[in-house]
């Protein structure tokens, strides 16, 4: 593992330089696609719309969406916790759905729209969920928070869309409750255990939206 990690790191740094230059080369064509990376694997052009901005990258196919966001686009709001789908720190919204960006390849999302915590709102113009997390103290260290907020925003939409959950008593009657929120947020682990305040923040936003 350690040596693998080192190679990947150095590769990422190498490709970050290419990525930085990529916007000038864009749109990346087939010739660029055949460009060879250090370890003999072809780089692939990837076009994403991230937080409303179109970006063109040249990526090693191994690059996860999470690493593309953090290492190539320098959007470090999205966090890497476990890198294996077990913590939810890397949650982003792709084509309107929350997913774990660590368990998907950036190349698989060519042409798609991605929203990260930076795209939901800014310090001067907070998203209601970001504001509610501040009001209700929905965090301590803050590491899991970007993932929690992306997930929380999507959870309210999933409930509004009538998507059932494990704790929905009748599959056809989806409604909002604390137990629904807890179950649906179970893919976001918080080491500081800010859970009760996260639920309060979500209830707050859900109430606002209803009113």
């Amino acid at each position, binding site marked *: 593992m350690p040596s*693998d990690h080192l190679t*990947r790191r150095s590769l990422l740094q190498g490709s970050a330089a290419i990525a930085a230059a990529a916007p000038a080369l864009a749109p990346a064509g087939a010739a660029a696609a055949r460009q060879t*990376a250090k*370890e*003999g*694997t*072809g780089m*692939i052009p990837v076009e994403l719309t991230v937080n409303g901005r179109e970006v063109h990258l040249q990526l*090693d*196919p*191994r690059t*996860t969406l999470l690493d593309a966001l953090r290492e190539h686009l320098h959007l470090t709001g999205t966090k890497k916790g476990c*890198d*294996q*789908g077990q913590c*939810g720190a890397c*949650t982003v919204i792709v084509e309107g*759905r*929350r*997913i*774990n960006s660590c*368990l*998907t*390849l950036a*190349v*698989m999302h060519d042409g798609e729209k991605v929203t990260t915590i930076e795209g939901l709102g800014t310090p001067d113009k907070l998203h209601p969920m970001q504001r509610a997390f501040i009001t209700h103290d929905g965090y301590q260290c803050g590491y899991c928070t970007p993932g929690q907020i992306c*997930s929380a925003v*999507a*959870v309210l939409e*999933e409930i509004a869309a*009538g*998507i*059932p*959950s*494990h704790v*929905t008593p009748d*599959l*056809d009657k989806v409604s909002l409750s604390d137990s629904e929120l*807890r*179950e*649906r947020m*179970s*893919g*976001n682990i918080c080491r500081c255990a800010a859970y009760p305040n996260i639920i309060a923040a979500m209830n707050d936003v859900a109430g606002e939206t209803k009113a």
Partner: protein
Amino acid sequence: MKPFTYSRATSVADAAKAAASTQGARFIAGGTNLLDLMKLQIETPTHLIDVNHLGLDRIEPTPEGGLRIGALVRNTDLAADKVVRRDYGVLSRALLAGASGQLRNKATTAGNLLQRTRCPYFYDTNMPCNKRKPGSGCGAIGGISRSLAILGVSDACIAQHPSDMAVAMRLLDAQVDTVGADGVARAIPIADFHMLPGDTPHVETALKSGEIITSVTLPKPIGGTHVYRKVRDRASYAFALVSVAAVFGKDGGSRFAFGGIGAKPWRTPAADAAASSGAKAVAEAALSGARTTHHNDFKKTLVERTLASLYRQKEARS
């Protein structure tokens, strides 16, 4: 991850042909299992064929009154589908009991069926494992085996099948539809889809080289009361220690399938036949031939108690 090349398949036939003719090629769907294993170098494909853009994401009625579920339908969409909720409730319930909201948004029908075991020794590349490295031995036998299987196991491997969805599909007598590298389609009954480990635990399914799953077909609805009960170490976001999928029929005819205890999604005719005799009888029939370790012997009791709880729930409702 080891380096690999990547391509997007443009047709089912081409995908199957390419997969069979390219050494080290694998399909990638949601990627939630494959990429996890690739990061640990348990899986080391040299080429990935992305099957996400083949139009295999539809759920359609069949002429026989059943339901055809595209291989790329996401677990969230399948669980939320109106027809599935109404006619195949046990499948919705099983899906919703698995993984997390984020993972279900990505995970696909085919990928879920093909997800690999959660045996901790399979995941630890420092340990012997006949499934990961044929002939290297089994770290779990004589190791910490609390989560592992008690039915269908062999001297070579005692790994449990981890899927919740597949247990419901087994209960519903689903069939797996595929297209082979030769372009020929076939239908595999779910009972024959997953293999028991025997001497070859690395052979996990009936799929041939390059064969691609296109859909899973459910026969027409069987009615009854559908339930899925999953027992695990956390209330959510954990794999099953034991799970029971059941349909209680109005006429007393009922069926049961089990997760967490089998080398594959587990179902026996004897357990279904014992339905009218109650939980204890069903458990005894289902557990016939069980082989436990001192770590996972508790699963036998847990099966019986989970069944008892389902019977009580059913009686309370009727």
